[in-house]
C-alpha cells in the first residue's frame, strides 16, 4: 500500500505539511474547471470522469485510509442515484436540493451498514459488502412500481442549476456542476484525512491491534469513516442520475464496484489524487478500447488487471524500475 511511513514522522510539522496545498494543485483544478468549456465536445466524458473520480475518492477513504475492503460500494452509489432521481421526479426538480437529500439518505444507509463491517476477516467484509449491494439491486429490480424495475427510472427532469443554468445537450453545464462538486468534496476529504481523526484512521489501517492499544476507539472510527464514505458515494450517484436524467439497475451492478476498486488500485490507494488519476486513466482506456472492440473490452481490462497484479502496481507506474533489482520484493517473498 501507499501510505507514508510514519515512523520517521514524529513531529507535527510533517503531519501538517501533508495537508498543505501546493501551487500546482490549484493550477490543476483551475484547468479542470475550464475543461468542459474548452473541450466542449468531450463534456460528456469529462462529466463521467468527474463522477467516477468522486466515487473513487469516497472508496479511498475506507479502503486506502482505513483498510476496509469493500466490493459493494455501488450500493451507496445506487442509493444516491435512485434517491436523486425519485426526488426530482416526484418532489422537487432543484438539483442542489436533490443532491443534499441523496447525500443524507446514503449517509444514513452507510451508518446502518457500518455495523456489518466491524467484525470478521477481509473475506467476511468482502461478502457482506457485496451482499448489501446485491440486496439493494434486487430491491430496485422488484419494487418496479417505484423504480421502474429492469427498465430503469426514466423521465427525470432536472430544474436549472441555481435557478439560472440549464442542463444542455452537450453537457458543459453538467460537467462543470460535477467538477465543482468533486472539487468541494475533494477539499473536504482532504481536510478529513489530514485531521487528527484521519491520522487515527491511518493508524487503524496500519495495525488495528496497536491502534486499539493506544486508545483509539477503533469500532466507532471505522463506523464514522464508512458512513462519510457512503455519503460521498451517494453524491456521486446523485450526480450521475441528475446529469444523465436516468437511473437504472446498472448503478448497483457488481462490476461497478469491481471497476471502482480497479481504478483506485491503478491510481494508487491512500492518496486522494489516486482516485482522480485512476478515474481518468480508466475512463479514457474504456472509451478507447470499447470504440475498437465494443464487445470484448472486458478482456483487455482483465488482462490489464492480471498483469498489473503480477508485475506489481509500483513497477508498472514507475517504468524506470523495470530493469533494476527488486530487493524489497524479494524480501517480501522470503518473509
Amino acid at each position: 500500500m501507499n501510505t507514508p511511513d510514519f515512523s520517521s514522522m514524529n513531529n507535527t510539522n510533517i503531519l501538517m505539511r501533508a495537508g498543505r496545498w501546493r501551487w500546482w494543485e490549484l493550477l490543476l483544478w483551475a484547468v479542470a474547471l475550464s475543461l468542459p468549456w474548452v473541450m466542449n465536445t468531450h463534456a460528456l466524458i469529462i462529466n463521467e470522469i468527474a463522477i467516477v473520480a468522486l466515487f473513487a475518492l469516497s472508496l479511498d477513504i475506507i479502503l486506502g485510509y482505513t483498510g476496509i475492503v469493500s466490493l459493494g460500494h455501488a450500493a451507496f452509489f445506487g442509493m444516491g442515484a435512485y434517491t436523486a432521481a425519485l426526488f426530482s421526479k416526484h418532489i422537487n426538480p432543484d438539483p442542489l436540493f436533490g443532491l443534499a437529500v441523496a447525500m443524507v439518505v446514503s449517509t444514513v444507509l452507510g451508518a446502518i451498514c457500518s455495523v456489518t463491517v466491524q467484525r470478521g476477516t477481509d473475506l467476511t467484509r468482502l461478502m457482506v459488502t457485496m451482499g448489501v449491494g446485491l440486496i439493494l439491486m434486487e430491491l430496485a429490480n422488484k419494487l418496479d412500481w417505484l423504480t421502474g424495475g429492469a427498465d430503469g427510472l426514466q423521465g427525470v427532469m432536472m430544474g436549472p442549476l441555481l435557478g439560472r443554468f440549464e442542463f444542455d445537450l452537450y453537457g458543459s453545464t453538467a460537467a462543470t456542476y460535477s467538477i465543482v462538486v468533486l472539487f468541494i468534496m475533494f477539499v473536504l476529504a482532504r481536510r478529513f484525512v489530514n485531521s487528527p481523526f484521519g491520522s487515527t484512521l491511518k493508524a487503524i489501517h496500519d495495525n488495528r491491534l496497536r491502534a486499539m492499544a493506544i486508545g483509539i476507539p477503533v469500532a466507532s472510527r471505522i463506523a464514522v469513516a464508512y458512513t462519510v464514505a457512503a455519503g460521498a458515494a451517494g453524491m456521486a450517484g446523485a450526480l450521475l442520475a441528475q446529469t444523465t436524467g436516468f437511473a437504472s439497475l446498472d448503478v448497483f451492478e457488481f462490476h461497478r464496484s469491481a471497476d471502482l476498486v480497479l481504478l483506485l488500485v491503478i491510481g494508487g490507494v491512500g492518496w486522494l489524487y489516486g482516485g482522480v488519476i485512476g478515474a481518468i486513466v480508466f475512463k479514457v482506456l474504456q472509451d478507447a478500447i470499447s470504440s475498437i472492440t465494443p464487445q470484448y473490452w472486458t478482456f483487455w481490462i482483465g488482462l490489464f488487471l492480471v498483469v498489473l497484479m503480477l508485475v506489481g502496481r509500483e513497477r508498472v507506474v514507475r517504468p524506470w524500475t523495470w530493469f533494476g533489482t527488486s530487493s524489497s520484493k524479494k524480501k517480501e517473498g522470503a518473509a
Partner: protein
Amino acid sequence: MLTILFDGIAYGMLLFILAVGLAVTMGLMNFVNLAHGAFAMVGGYVTVLLMQRLDVPFLLCLPIAFVTSALLGAVLERTLYRPLYNRPHLDQVMFSIGLTFMAVAAVDYFVGSTQQIMQLPEWLKGRTEIGEGAWMLGMGHYRLFIIAVCAALTIALQHILTKTRFGSRLRASVDDQRVAAGLGINVNVVFLATFAVGSGLAGLGGALGADVLGMDPTFPLKFMIYFLIVVAVGGTSSITGPLLAALLLGIADVAGKYYIPKLGAFIVYSLMIIILVWRPQGLFVRKGGKA
C-alpha cells in the same frame, strides 16, 4: 413440498461440488480466488461442446471435464497464482477478477454469448413420483443422479482429507507452512495438487450443472456470489461446514423462489448477511485452527 426439498438438496449438492475447491483455496491456502467460477465454466463448456459437436457420451464427458479443468488449474497455479500467495487479499481479489473478466470475454469470443443447450441421455430424462397430495415426492432422474454423484464425491473427499497420508500432509501444510516444510513435506507440490483437484471439482460441478444452472459466458460472475456464500457461511476449516451451508443455501433458494418469487434472491443474501454479522468466521468453525 417434498419435491421442493428434494430439488433444494440436489441444487445444494451441486453448489457444494462447485464450491468445495474454493473452500480449500480460500480457507486452507488463504487465497481469495474469485476466478473459481471460470474453472467451473471451463468444465461446463467442455462437456457441452463435446456432446454437441463430437457426440461424446455424457458419462465420458464428466471425467474429461474434471481432467481439463484440473490441468488448467495446475498450469495456472504454477505460473500465475503462486507468486500471489503472500500478497494482500485485495491484490488477489483484483487478480482473480481480472482472470474472470478474461475468461468471460474469451468464451464469448470463441463460442458466442448464447446459452448452450445440453442434450441429456434418455435414461436421465425421466421422473419418478412417490406418494400423493401435499406429500408427493417428484424426483427428476437427473437430480437423483446429481445427488448420488455428489454424495459419493463428498464421502471420498472426507476420506482423503481425514484418513490418507496426503490429507494429513495437506492439513499440516495449511496449519503451518514453515513447520510442515521443515518436516520434509513439499508444500508447493501439496498446494499444487490441491489447487488442481479443487479446479477439477469445479469443472466437474460445471459439467453436472450445465443443464440445471445454464451455461453462458456470464456464468462465473452469476454464480460467483453463490460459491462465496457457501464458503463464507460454511466456514473454511472443514468440508462438512461448506456442505451444510450449500444444502441450506440450496434449499433456501429453491424454496424462496418457489413460495415467494417476488423476493427472488433477496432471501439468500439477507440470510448470508445475518449469519455473517452474527458469526463472522462462518457457522461451523473448527476450534484451534487458524482463522
